[in-house]
């Protein structure tokens, strides 16, 4: 027993930053921390001040290194495979939601900073990727420009969604955050802080491009990406509104077809969606209420694509209540395709060339591959182990697929009406 206890203390002390252990001795003699008694105390104080002064005078002209980690476990009760998070199945999975990130930042002068953030994810076999790599220039106290690789502020949490410790969930609701896929882009970003009484308002405008791989359609190139967002917050409330316009290229998609009566289509034909230049728009609105006891979050997002690709909208509402170090929370989320069976797919060539008006059988088949409808109800618990380490557990009930595969891989869709997923994580920042 005692050995187990000692092991526990050793493990805990690994997480514990040194000053915490030192502060224990401070509390036993509180006066020594406020007024130095001996010559040695004074010398020690002088050394500390010199170090701090050096740090301040050079205006932090040094390399800052920070990191975050999420170690997770997930398992589903169904043989289906989730589309995101590296595919959670009914097997034990320690990698799907896990990640580690390291950020380095250097300021050659007070107005300029260079930042690089590398993230390795379990779902990508832990290959390190540069998520942020930019140079920032502070034009004034209100205005900052950034140039390089960054995360688009598409939603409330987009910019720090991978920092598990900074988020209430193990992963934010897929019904909203899963609609867009990747939000990293290369470009320029302007951040303007509007000085306005008790409300801190900031305007963010970005322009750039990106290329990534979408789980259904493959390689997508977004050539022209413009995003605008406005965020305003006071002590308890945050409101956010975002609009993004993307001109991009969604590649051709081949879908195998069965024989369909009264059409020239026979089994073995493939339906090829045309390679299209498309306008994609995202609209999102969100709000957070946090009075350090209650935490309420809600967000709505809508994706519109001018092509055969689906228009989707999603929303969630989350309520959490902190009791000491524990925060139980509940989330309801829903995503729905807006134009199911009503999109003009256009002329599609296969073995036989046919024109397919919306609502026809072939359109229905196409929808079965592209439509994602689902609702998720999540019960979760976050526990603060130490000021920089938290543990989370979540139980998600995913249902209301309405004839679609939801956010599951088409090759292995849900076998029943619902899927339950259990998730655990330990998150830390360092």
């Amino acid at each position, binding site marked *: 027993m005692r050995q187990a206890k000692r092991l526990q203390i050793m493990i805990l002390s690994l997480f514990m*930053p040194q*000053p*915490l252990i030192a*502060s224990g001795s*401070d*509390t036993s003699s*509180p006066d020594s*921390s*406020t*007024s*130095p008694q001996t010559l040695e105390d004074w010398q020690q*104080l002088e050394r*500390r*001040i010199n170090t*701090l*002064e050096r*740090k*301040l005078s050079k205006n*932090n002209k040094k390399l*800052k290194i*920070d990191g*975050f980690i999420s170690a997770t476990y997930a398992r589903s009760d169904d043989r289906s495979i989730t589309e995101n998070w590296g595919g959670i199945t009914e097997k034990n999975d320690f990698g799907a939601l896990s990640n580690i*990130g390291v*950020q380095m*930042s250097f300021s050659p002068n007070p107005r300029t*900073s260079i*930042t690089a*953030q590398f993230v390795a994810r379990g779902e990508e076999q832990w290959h390190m990727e540069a998520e*942020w790599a*930019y140079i*920032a220039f502070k034009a004034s*106290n209100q205005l900052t420009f*950034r140039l390089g690789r960054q*995360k688009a502020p598409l939603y409330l949490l987009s*910019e*720090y969604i991978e*920092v598990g*410790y*900074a988020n209430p969930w193990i992963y934010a609701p897929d019904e909203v955050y899963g609609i867009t896929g990747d939000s990293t882009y290369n470009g320029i970003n302007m951040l303007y*802080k509007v000085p306005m009484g*008790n409300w*801190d308002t900031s305007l963010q405008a970005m322009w750039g491009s990106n290329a990534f791989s979408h789980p259904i359609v493959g390689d997508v190139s977004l050539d022209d990406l413009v995003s605008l967002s406005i965020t305003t917050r006071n*002590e308890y409330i945050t409101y956010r509104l975002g609009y993004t316009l993307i001109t991009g290229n969604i590649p051709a998609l081949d879908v195998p077809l069965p024989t369909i009566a009264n059409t020239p289509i026979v089994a073995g034909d493939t339906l090829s969606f045309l390679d299209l230049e498309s306008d994609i728009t995202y609209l999102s609105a969100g709000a957070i209420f946090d*009075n*350090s006891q209650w935490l309420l979050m809600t967000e709505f997002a809508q994706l519109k694509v001018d092509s055969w690709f689906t228009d989707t909208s999603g929303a969630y509402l989350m309520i959490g209540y*902190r009791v*000491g*170090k524990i925060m139980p929370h509940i989330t309801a989320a829903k995503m729905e395709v807006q134009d199911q069976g009503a999109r003009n797919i256009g002329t599609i060539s296969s073995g036989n060339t046919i024109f397919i008006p919306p609502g026809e059988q072939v359109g229905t088949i196409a929808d079965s591959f592209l439509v994602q409808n689902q609702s998720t109800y999540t019960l979760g618990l976050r526990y*603060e182990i130490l*000021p*920089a380490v*938290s543990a989370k557990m979540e139980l998600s009930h995913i249902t209301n697929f309405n004839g679609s595969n939801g956010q599951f891989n088409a090759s292995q869709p849900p076998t029943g009406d619902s899927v339950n997923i259990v998730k655990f994580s330990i998150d830390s*920042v360092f």
Partner: protein
Amino acid sequence: MVILSQQKRANTQQHKLKANACMALLISLCLLTASGYSRAEISIVVSNFNNNELNSSLIRKIFLGKRSSFADGSPSIAITQDEHSEIAQHFNFMLLNRSPQQYKAYWARMIFTGKAYPPEQAYSDAEVIELIKSNPSIISYIHTSSLTSDVKEVFRIQKAPDKKKLHF
């Protein structure tokens, strides 16, 4: 009978002793809480050369990295105390409305989105006072009982936070 009365006397003496001990304990407890209470008062301090008006909302913005200048436009540098110390946790809770975990999570959001870095930390009231004497841009906090003429108090946090609410 004699034995009984002796026992009684012994008992009453014991009671008296107990009562005295209780009183002593009570008095020392009162003194402890009184001294604990005065130590819980926190003064937000700046340089004597700093003549800017400061209110709680402005102080909050400076300590949360949302502002980097005083009202007159001169640069402000926030210095906190050791994040694990009681004074820092009281300050974070009373003025910034954040538990140690929420404070850490706030800075994680700021750091990993490249918006701001947390203030440098000092490890005692004396260190804070020395730093302010050497750099008039600094704003920090100390125990009110440690106030000296070397620094100027601009705001005072009077009440000690409820221990239950402070998620230690």
